[in-house]
């Protein structure tokens, strides 16, 4: 009977967003950016009196809701393909950046001490490397004494943007991973155990000797977990930090990306953290309710301009300035109402 319950919840979420007062902005989707959207909404409400009603029902739900036109904007951690956007008349743009961090539980190994690369992590998650003193790991960590403990891979069981970024990164760095597993919000892991949510993965990793997991950066940082460093595309060892995420976003080729369809994993750039991702917003290019979309754009513009410090407090990374101005240009040229640009730049 639980499926009925879940369907009901979706239904209620839909009706709630319909019922939100006209002055409020309504949105639905990704759970990953929910904390920062909620914080922004709170500050924005105090400032302007206009509230944001954001239902964090997941990216899939957000895409379904915006396509059903029950919300003003949808939010997704996985960018929609340009074809899909064209056929549905939607525009997408990045809103906030975050990163995914591998964490380990090996006796005697502290935060930032273990170094891995994409191919090795992929081999671990495919069951090809099963012990911490494997030659491939030793080669990356010549100075570290690693135990013969069995590796227990822990993955996120709930479909999530975190899963997508992680599996996308492994697909880009390991051809075998790409052909046998691939990238998605949920994938079929051949080995390991699935834990629910960041807290589940963190707890499973902390409990199990020899475990490796992956969590959102904010989660790893706030819980002081033993994160690893990674080799990026440029061949450098990088540690996860706001700077290395921003470096990935800044060096990415946004200008050349059709409809902002760009996944920030494995970007060039000497300092780029390789598992970085943006969370996206979806709105209609020719909205039926132009006034609400205008209100939503005003909110996003305010968040770009004044929300950066709030984002940093929650360990999210704001977009680089050049990208923000590119996004706002896109609003002006692509979102129209009655043939005229809707966004006036204010």
């Amino acid at each position, binding site marked *: 009977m639980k499926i009925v319950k879940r369907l009901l919840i979706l239904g209620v979420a839909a009706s709630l967003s319909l019922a939100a007062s006209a002055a409020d902005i309504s949105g639905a989707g990704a759970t990953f950016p929910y904390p920062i959207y909620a914080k922004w909404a709170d500050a924005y409400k105090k400032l302007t009196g206009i509230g944001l009603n954001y239902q964090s029902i997941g990216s899939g739900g957000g895409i379904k809701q915006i396509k059903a036109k029950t919300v003003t904007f949808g939010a997704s951690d996985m960018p929609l393909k340009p074809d899909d956007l064209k056929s549905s008349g939607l525009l997408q743009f990045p809103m906030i950046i975050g990163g995914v961090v591998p964490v380990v539980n090996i006796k005697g190994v502290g935060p930032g001490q273990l170094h891995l690369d994409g191919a090795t992590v992929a081999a671990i998650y495919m069951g090809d490397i099963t012990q911490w003193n494997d030659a491939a790991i030793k080669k990356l960590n010549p100075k570290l004494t690693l135990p013969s403990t069995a590796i227990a891979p822990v993955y996120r069981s709930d479909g999530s943007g975190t899963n997508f970024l992680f599996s996308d990164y492994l697909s880009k760095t390991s051809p075998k991973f790409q052909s046998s597993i691939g990238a998605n919000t949920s994938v079929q892991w051949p080995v390991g155990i*699935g*834990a629910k949510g960041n807290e589940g993965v963190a707890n499973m990793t902390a409990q*199990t000797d020899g475990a490796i997991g992956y969590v959102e950066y904010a989660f790893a940082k706030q819980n002081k977990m033993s994160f690893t460093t990674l080799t990026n595309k440029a061949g450098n060892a990088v540690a996860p930090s706001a700077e290395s995420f921003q470096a990935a976003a800044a060096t990415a080729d946004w200008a050349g990306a059709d409809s902002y369809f760009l996944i920030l994993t494995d970007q060039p750039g000497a300092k780029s953290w390789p598992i970085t991702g943006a969370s996206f917003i979806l709105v209609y290019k020719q909205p039926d309710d132009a006034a609400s979309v205008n209100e939503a754009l005003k909110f996003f513009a305010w968040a770009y301009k004044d929300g950066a410090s709030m984002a940093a407090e929650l360990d999210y990374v704001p977009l680089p300035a050049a990208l923000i101005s590119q996004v706002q240009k896109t609003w002006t040229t692509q979102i129209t109402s009655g043939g005229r640009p809707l966004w006036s730049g204010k």
Partner: protein
Amino acid sequence: MPGPSYFCATRSGTDIVAIIDPGHAAKQLIFERIFRSATLIAAILVLLILGGVAVSLLRGAWPALSHFRLAFVTREIWNPVTDQFGALAPIYGTVVTSLIAMLIAVPTGFGIALFLTELCPPLLKRPIGVAVELLAAVPSIIFGIWGLFVLAPVLQRYVQPWLIRNLGDIPAVGHLFKGPPYGIGILTAGVVLAIMVLPFIAATMRDVFDTVPPMLKESGYGLGATTWEVIWNVVVPHSRVGIVGGTMLGLGRALGETMAVTFVIGNAHRISSSLLAPGTTISSAIANEFTEAVGDLYTSSLIALGLLLFLITFTVIALAQAMLRRLERRTGAVA
């Protein structure tokens, strides 16, 4: 309170009442009709909702079912990347975790109920009874978090290594207790489920045992029977129907439980011979993946899982009904 004949009369017609007082009868008649149609509507509403659920599940599941056909229930694969879906692993997990839960909860619940009704000192009766009912009121998410943070480490550190050491090498049975002790997995999910359904089973059985006429028990004791003999020869046969009913109530809840299981089962779409290995259930797969499922076939496959759970639960209830009918016939024959 009106006598039974009065009731019969009003239900079958109003002739008798009409003879007594026509004015009162007319009023009663209207009230009667309103009352009757209100209850009828309420009853039909249940059928409509159930029918609506079945129809919408079927409609939602149709793309997946028509695409995979029978393979949907016979394959273990569950790969959202290549859009290949089979429900065998979740079906297996659902059935096995529920069976483990029943194996633990039914004997324990039976014991609690017997103790409370037959053996308990009056002073303890209320506290234990209230405790059982309180256990039923704990939200499932609490059981999930408790299972993950408290029970799983204990199982991982003490119970599972013992099982692997002592039972892992026994032929046949040993397969059930092999592999690394993760702490979470099919067995842990079964144990958490057992604790969750225990109060339902215990409370139902207690209520049924309470309905055994004291006279029957007193007669048993009067004939010199021991407590054990009275329980097995008087109490249990008299409440067989209720025992089956309580078990089925617990089983129904175990099959559909979502949140607590999701936390402790390990969420792997795999069928392993070991009970210590991670698995998945129908409801936890839906809970895990529905929100982020993109693509028609993926969403449809998840809804098809829901349909399967609906069918499994329906089958369990139907079987229980059939069993109860058989039991009733047998008891009738004995009497």
